């Protein structure tokens, strides 16, 4: 095999005032023809910077300080801009993480694909259209004739990512760089895209540099693996070697932090329900107005379930299946259209606004986005004590309790007087947990509470939740799209699809003996499932 790209001693400097002087430092790697190289590492480890440097797309202020990247006997880092332009798209192509925003919203898909040809002056107008159609077919987009005339907003996330791939493949590049192309997609779609990339690699024999932070994905597609940390390569080798026998501590820790498929022991659950949901319905009507017709989405459609005291109930399902809506209805952030929500026996739906505010503390929520869920202009102590003080707890007492809780979630009490931006994502998520606990809730709804976090931090938060469940007899409704995480923490799991509850059962039932076709599909789509079960077996 011949080497498509070889990066040698690449160092990329960050502008002044950045968190460290170099985004990547002395990084070397090589990709062979037809090979998939996975670059893994935590957020901020310099994965994207490496890729952007190759494309000549470094953000302003960020510069290549040293090293070279040889591609077909040329150093792509030092080409003049015109030659770089000729290279981009034609020889090296790239796809990005965010399919929702990576396409020009005002341009038809077909035009955006054809533009690649235009940029490199290939073919005539008519041929370009033909080629675009072919590409759309190749990435298996449905109804190509229609898609070619569609605008991005008319496509789903997965479809958009396929369109992106079509663009990237247009000129049969020798190297495809994929920067976390599936992170924003749900599991089933992710599985399809991964399969597509594998197929195309097969067909075209191109080299792929695949950036991810998900070892499941690595296990699924990688030939070679590079592990990065704080801008340096800490480990490299074949996928087999790295996954099975990691050498470096950091890699080991990363792997350890990944929830294994091992199922927790069954626990005996209490009889008293903390949360009862009966025939819950929520329909979203959008638009509507003078002359417009309203559009209806049945986000939650006649769902009934209970969460027992001290139980952790996992709620899984594809994106848009109504998980969040269910959770938000349970805390009455969303007013249901029908059905009952009983928290500790009280029907929240029947309460007046005033009474509701008094009962609020019983159910609390941990939010998905640790950045958005804290008011950037409020000190941590305020965020935690606001609720209790509103309930009538004297300020002194509330503050003392807040400090105590901060200790419990593993943050020093001195965290209290700081502002959110002084904390990392994981720390903020802990603050969120402390805030929920401060209200002495009976039930906590955790909506994708760990999805935004790096695996190692994810593990810490999960540990914390487990500990709290034990200590405080908390009930938790744990919403996630990550079945592996669900398997770790939950007692029972409920599966949702298109607003309906399709299956509910103990973790063991769902994982080992799923009843519904949909559940089986979900399970199968988890990346690295095979590798996972191997690990589980060896663990």
């Amino acid at each position: 095999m011949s080497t498509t790209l070889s990066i040698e001693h690449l160092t990329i400097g960050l502008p002044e005032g950045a968190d460290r002087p170099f985004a990547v430092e002395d990084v070397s790697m090589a990709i062979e023809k037809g090979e998939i190289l996975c670059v893994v590492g935590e957020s901020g480890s310099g994965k994207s910077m490496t890729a952007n440097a190759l494309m000549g797309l470094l953000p302003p202020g960020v510069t290549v300080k040293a090293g070279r990247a040889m591609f077909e006997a040329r150093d792509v880092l030092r080409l003049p801009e015109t030659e770089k332009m000729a290279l981009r798209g034609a020889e090296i192509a790239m796809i990005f993480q965010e399919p929702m925003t990576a396409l020009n919203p005002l341009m038809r898909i077909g035009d955006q694909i054809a533009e690649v040809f235009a940029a490199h002056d290939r073919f005539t107008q008519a041929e370009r259209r033909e080629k675009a159609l072919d590409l759309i077919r190749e990435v298996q987009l449905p109804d190509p004739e229609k898609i070619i005339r569609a605008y991005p907003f008319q496509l789903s996330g997965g479809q958009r990512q396929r369109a992106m791939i079509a663009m990237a493949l247009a000129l049969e590049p020798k190297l495809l760089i994929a920067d976390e192309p599936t992170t924003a997609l749900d599991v089933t779609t992710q599985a399809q895209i991964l399969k597509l990339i594998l197929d195309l690699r097969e067909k075209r024999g191109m080299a792929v540099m695949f950036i991810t932070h998900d070892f499941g994905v690595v296990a699924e597609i990688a030939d070679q693996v590079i592990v990065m940390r704080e801008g340096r390569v800490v480990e490299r080798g074949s996928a087999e070697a790295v996954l099975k026998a990691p050498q470096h501590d950091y890699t080991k820790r990363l792997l350890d932090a990944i929830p294994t498929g091992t199922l927790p022991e069954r626990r005996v659950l209490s009889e008293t329900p903390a949360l009862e949901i009966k025939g819950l319905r929520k329909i979203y009507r959008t638009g509507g107005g003078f002359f417009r017709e309203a559009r209806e989405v049945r986000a939650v459609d006649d769902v009934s379930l209970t969460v027992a005291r001290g139980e952790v109930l996992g709620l899984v399902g594809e994106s848009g299946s109504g998980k969040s809506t269910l959770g938000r209805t349970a805390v009455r952030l969303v007013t249901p259209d029908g059905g009952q929500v009983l928290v500790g026996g009280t029907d929240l739906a029947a309460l007046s606004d005033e009474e509701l505010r008094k009962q609020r503390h019983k159910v609390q929520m941990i939010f998905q986005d640790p950045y958005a869920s804290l008011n950037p202009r409020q000190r941590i102590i305020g965020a935690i004590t606001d609720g209790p003080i509103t309930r009538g707890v004297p300020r002194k007492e509330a503050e003392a309790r807040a400090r105590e809780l901060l200790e419990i979630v593993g943050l020093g009490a001195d965290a209290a007087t700081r502002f959110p931006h002084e904390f990392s994502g994981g720390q903020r998520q802990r603050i969120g947990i402390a805030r929920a606990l401060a209200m002495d809730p009976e039930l906590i709804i955790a909506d994708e509470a760990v999805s935004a976090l790096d695996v190692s931090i994810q593990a810490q938060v999960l540990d914390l939740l487990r500990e709290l469940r034990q200590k405080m007899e908390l009930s938790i409704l744990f919403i996630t799209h990550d079945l592996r995480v669900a398997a770790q923490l939950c007692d029972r799991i409920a599966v949702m699809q298109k607003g309906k509850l399709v299956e509910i059962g103990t973790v063991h039932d769902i994982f080992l003996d799923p009843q519904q076709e949909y559940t089986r599909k979900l399970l199968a789509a988890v990346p690295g499932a095979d590798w996972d079960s191997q690990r589980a077996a060896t663990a």
Partner: protein
Amino acid sequence: MWKRFRSNLGAMVGVVLLLAVILIAIFAPLLFSHDPWQMVQRPFLAPFSTDGLPLGTDTLGRDVAAQLAYGARVSLLVGLVSTLVALLIGVPLGALAGFYGGYVDEGAMRFTEFFQTIPNFALAIVLVAIFEPTLASITLAIAIVSWPPVARLVRAEVMSVRKREFVDAATLAGLSKPHILVRQVLPNTVSPIIVMASLMVATAILLESSLSFLGLGDPNTMSWGYMIGAARTVIRSAWWLSFFPGIAIVITVLALNLIGEGLNDALNPHLSRKGKA
């Protein structure tokens, strides 16, 4: 943020200019022994020709430099107060509309639209004519025509902040809606409001001068617009009478705009990565 602002050359130039204007306004009585209406010399003395009258005299023999200094007071005062009043109208309206949505929003926005539909300078003219030109009525009129953009801005900001999860968190903490609006949402909209306010002061100064130019100024207060309006009829024979106040307005408005741009860059750092600012 201050660091970023300071490193912006334009903004610093703006600050220096504005400070100069403010200082002149504050110390006008110390700088000039006579008041700006007093006839001190022959009329139409050219600038730099007579000692003690650096900028010459006007049609009645009054000291142009003193008028300029006292005019700064009025212009700045009108600019600041009218902006403040506009904020007092626009912020609550926009905040309520954005926060409560639904009929409140619909009603508030209709109301705002209504004011935006009437050409605002024309409305200001009518208001001032109706309430008779006094400093108060001019300020109020300017405020009345300049609040709608504030309301729109605040509404948009509040609507976007309202969707952030910390608002949900506050709801779950049992905080009341007004409390959430005032304590959690609004503080997060201040930066764009500050930026806008700095530009509004500039616009208000221009508006006041335009009204004065049309003869709708307060005849008892010396303002730059008054000076230009009074001098336009002699623009051919005594250019300095309209030139200096014109330059004063340009400088002040420019300074405020530069500051506004600077604030904009400093407060909305698109350069830094999301969430880390």
